[in-house]
């Protein structure tokens, strides 16, 4: 029996634990107290993160669909088929989806494969669905699209403002830091349509209508400016654009009274929030999908940035725009260039110098993809349905769009137009059902590698057991396909460390990292440009990453969500997570300890609304939107705002994304998963 220290495969917090390994098999999880992130503490998903690993459902052999049925195949047969098919398409007829669930090494390999082997410009992953607005929004105003501060320094905050994040359930060990700050005297303000377990700990709760974030934030900024609480020195020395911002937020539209009408928050609470926030001395914003998953996602993100620049809350401990990244390695997958517009470390594909750097570095004899932006995954789905035949082939690694993407009927339609679909995963998920070839992959416990948490901390995964059957690590599979296609020389790696070193040599923010340096409990936060650089826990301490070093304040007018309630669809539907499940449930629904706590979905509805509809708690109801309908048990509670309903998106049998709208932010192309119009119907009793 031995303990193998590793990092958690679920959310972006980056907790560590030990995997207990007995006779070569993972049998449990044990605390790893030395981790500076979680000090041995875990949320329930961490506590039971071993349960799915040796599930009998794990994919153990490649599968090839023959006459509509999956048939087990040898690796040789499967790889040969995949290589032949891939070779038969023109570059831009192919697209790849990388994964926020796998390692940096796996993602780098996929990025190189897409742009070097397939030579397609179309590569993206599910960051599109969670923090695309953060990446685009913050890069635009600060010059870097990531969480500005570190998790530990949240405890130094004097005022924590959480908007659009149910931190206790979605980033529990960050929730702990908020409570530590509160125990030291910090004020805690919480804004969300749901009075969540997080909100119940707040000193001030702002229950507001989903999608009215910009109005709320502009209202707070007007109140701050009106009282002269803005940080004039910070604005003057470190920011541009104050006049434009001021012109917008001082409009009468954002008076306390008007904002109260738009958001549903009493004016005095907005006033108190503005005062606490502006005057604390160190105020932090924490946000997540509630801010990003809107057609105004980028606007929402920029507004958070505006508030922090206005009050001078950047570049110091206990401050910052703390975008809580959802998945274990969504930060890393973005850093690895698994986005249609950038190579690693956000080096733009349209920048000729960057394109040359990668072409020269990779040495493909026949060049790499053109230096043009490709399709985002959400755009890709639209192209598949609207221009069938343009994209013929899709290679998906570790993603499950058939549950995770908006408007699932549309996604199904899109996937069915494909000529050839390869899915590489650890389980036969809902998306894999549509595949022509399924390749069995190793899970986090079965490989070495690195992942990058929300605080830009790059930490190790360490192999604890062998993959089941013939399953293999993702980068190994990718390299084998490349070799079959004649590019073995470009994928010569023997270990994940080889992959990492190649990546780091092309990636300025990772250039100073090595496995030796990362194999420490503290690991390293990027940017870490040189081997003697200590890493950067807090960004923007002296200047911003903008060309002139100054943060950019912008004028953001409030816009309503794309689809607002009307007489036919009178409620706002918002979606989200439960602490017990993970996203599309492939892992957690195979973890008995988690699944038994929340074994199916529910629609949360306010007590008064339920009364009007004659709906009782636990009663099965129909939820309908213009996209589709599901049958789902009601959860009647006073904790959700009247007029708003909530459905967790984990459950295939009552999938929230059957209902959601495929309306996109114009810049980030993120879908509006947090607001659409829905009706709730009582199901007629069967007599």
């Amino acid at each position: 029996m031995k303990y193998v220290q590793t990092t958690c495969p679920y959310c972006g917090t980056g907790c560590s634990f030990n995997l207990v390994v007995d006779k070569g098999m993972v049998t449990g999880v044990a605390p790893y107290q030395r981790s500076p992130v979680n000090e041995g503490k875990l949320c329930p998903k961490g506590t039971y993160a071993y349960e799915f690993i040796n599930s009998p459902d794990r994919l153990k052999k490649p599968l090839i669909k023959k006459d509509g049925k999956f048939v087990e195949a040898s690796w040789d047969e499967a790889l040969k088929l995949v290589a032949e098919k891939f070779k038969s398409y023109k570059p831009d007829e192919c697209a790849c989806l990388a994964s926020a669930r796998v390692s940096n090494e796996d993602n780098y390999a996929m990025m190189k494969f897409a742009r070097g082997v397939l030579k397609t410009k179309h590569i993206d992953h599910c960051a599109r669905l969670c923090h695309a607005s953060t990446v685009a929004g913050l890069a635009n105003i600060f010059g870097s699209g990531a969480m500005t501060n570190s998790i530990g320094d949240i405890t130094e905050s004097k005022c924590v403002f959480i908007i659009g994040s149910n931190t206790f359930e979605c980033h529990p060990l960050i929730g702990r830091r908020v409570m530590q700050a509160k125990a030291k005297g910090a004020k805690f303000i919480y804004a969300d349509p749901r009075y969540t377990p997080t909100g119940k700990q707040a000193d001030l709760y702002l229950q507001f209508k989903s999608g009215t974030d910009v109005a709320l934030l502009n209202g707070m900024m007007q109140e701050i400016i009106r009282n002269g609480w803005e940080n004039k020195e910070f604005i003057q020395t470190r920011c541009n654009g104050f006049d434009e911002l001021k012109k917008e937020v001082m409009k009468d539209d954002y008076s306390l009274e008007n904002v109260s009408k738009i958001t549903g928050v009493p004016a005095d609470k907005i006033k108190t929030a503005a005062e606490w926030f502006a005057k604390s001395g160190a105020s932090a914003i924490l946000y997540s999908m509630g801010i990003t998953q809107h057609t105004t996602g980028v606007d929402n993100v920029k507004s958070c940035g505006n508030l922090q620049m206005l009050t001078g809350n950047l570049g110091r401990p206990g401050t910052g725009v703390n975008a809580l990244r959802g998945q274990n390695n969504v930060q890393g997958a973005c850093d690895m260039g698994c986005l249609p517009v950038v190579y690693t470390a956000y080096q733009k594909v349209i920048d000729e110098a960057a394109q040359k750097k990668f072409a020269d570095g990779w040495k493909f004899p026949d060049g790499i993809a053109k230096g043009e932006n490709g399709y985002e995954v959400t755009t890709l789905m639209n192209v598949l349905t609207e221009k069938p035949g343009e994209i013929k082939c899709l290679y998906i690694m570790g993603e499950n769009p058939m549950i995770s993407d908006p408007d699932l009927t549309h996604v199904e339609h899109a996937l069915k137009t494909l000529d050839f679909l390869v899915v590489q995963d650890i389980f036969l998920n809902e998306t894999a059902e549509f595949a022509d070839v399924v390749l069995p992959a190793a899970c986090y416990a079965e490989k070495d590698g690195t992942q990058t948490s929300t605080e830009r901390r790059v930490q190790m995964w360490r192999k604890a057991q062998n993959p089941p059957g013939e399953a293999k690590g993702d980068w190994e599979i990718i390299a084998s396909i490349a070799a079959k296609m004649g590019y073995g020389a470009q994928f010569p790696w023997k270990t994940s460390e080889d992959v990492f070193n190649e990546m780091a040599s092309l990636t300025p923010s990772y250039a100073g990292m090595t496995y030796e340096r990362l194999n420490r409990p503290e690991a390293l936060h990027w940017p870490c440009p040189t081997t003697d650089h200590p890493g950067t826990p807090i960004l923007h301490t002296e200047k911003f990453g903008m060309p002139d070093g100054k943060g950019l304040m912008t004028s953001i007018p409030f816009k309503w969500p794309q689809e607002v309630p009307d007489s036919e669809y009178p409620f706002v539907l918002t979606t989200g997570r439960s602490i017990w499940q993970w996203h599309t449930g492939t892992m957690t629904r195979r973890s008995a300890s988690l699944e038994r706590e929340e074994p199916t979905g529910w629609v949360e509805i306010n007590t008064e609304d339920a009364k009007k509809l004659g709906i009782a708690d636990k009663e099965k109801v129909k939820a309908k939107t213009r996209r589709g309908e599901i049958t789902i048990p009601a959860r009647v509670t006073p904790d959700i705002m009247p007029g708003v309903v909530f459905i967790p998106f984990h459950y295939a049998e009552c999938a929230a994304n059957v209902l959601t709208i495929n309306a996109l932010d114009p810049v980030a192309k993120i879908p509006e998963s947090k607001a659409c119009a829905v009706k709730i119907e009582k199901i007629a009793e069967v007599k």
Partner: protein
Amino acid sequence: MGLFDSKPAIKAGDMVYAWTLEDQIAQKAECGGAVTGLLKYALTNKMVDAVLAVQKGQDIYDAVPTVVTDPKELVSTAGSLHCGTLLIAKVVQKFQKGSPDKKLAVTVKGCDLMALHELAKRKGVNLSNLLLIGVNCGGTVSPVKARSMIRDVYQVDPNTVHKEEIDKGQFIIEYEGGHKGISIDELEESGYGRRSNCRRCLYKVPREADLACGNWGVIGDKAGKATFVEVCSGKGADLLQKAVKSGVIATTPADPKGIEIRKKVEGAMVKLGQKWRKKDFTALKADLWNTIAGETSRCIKCYSCIENCPVCMPVAGNGTETKSLMVEQGALPPSPMFHMRRFAHISDSCVNCGQCEELCAMDIPLALFSHAIRSEADLAFDPKLGRPDYSN
């Protein structure tokens, strides 16, 4: 020397100074290396199949439980790590689950030993397959907290510290370019120092082990060069006797003055424990229900308090919450009954090991609650599984 055979047989109750005669261990170990020497003897001579010890991981703050089957590797487990807050009893339980018939030698602190005894009462471990080398423990410091203490109070970069020890009431560090000691009282007054459960602990010399080892009471020319060993069982006597006979361990009777000093140190530690107990429990008394209600209101039901508790015995795989009339499935924060039923379950067996509190995702002072409940219950009621052999 050289006349071991003529010495009377070692028996339970004996107190000796002991040290290893193996150079390799002596160089690496502290206080004469008797513990490592004895473990190595037991493993080499097949008295046990494996040794469970704690090894330095990535640095001195990282204590890694390690199962050793090759005697040569044991030297890497020599030395103590005060930032190791592991509960070895739970590791033993995991080991025995996979290897129920293997004999295992284990180094144990007081809390490990108490936990093993409670586990054994509930058939969670099999004591007859264990050889227990007890080590005195004055308390441990959580690793991350220790690092911030060294940075903030000692004003020393924790990465440069290569040794820490607790001696004469001080937490002492050695680092590149110097050493520094600060009294534990002073550290604890400012919110650092040992875990709060350790502060309240009254079980400092683990006499229910087979041997109880430590450095308290080693005086004269043996100070720092030998381990004080109290023989606590026939099994312990047998091990020591054989190790001495085979020439890997040497002993000399403990100096009577040393025995007195050891007793005094133990007494002082217990007194300090009682002081903390009084402080913590009376503070809790002031507003007991509201404190428990307030603190547990941020519970995220991570199950760490149950999974890491040595005396929690959850009914396996029955989906408790589907049957409970009071604790709803999934709901956060859980109903107060989620905590109440656990407090009741462990009320006469909480050993104050502190794992529930240290590993609580929301820093709820759970060990304080359950320790207070048990202490009060012990005064008022006879425990259902009988009075334990230890006293805490």
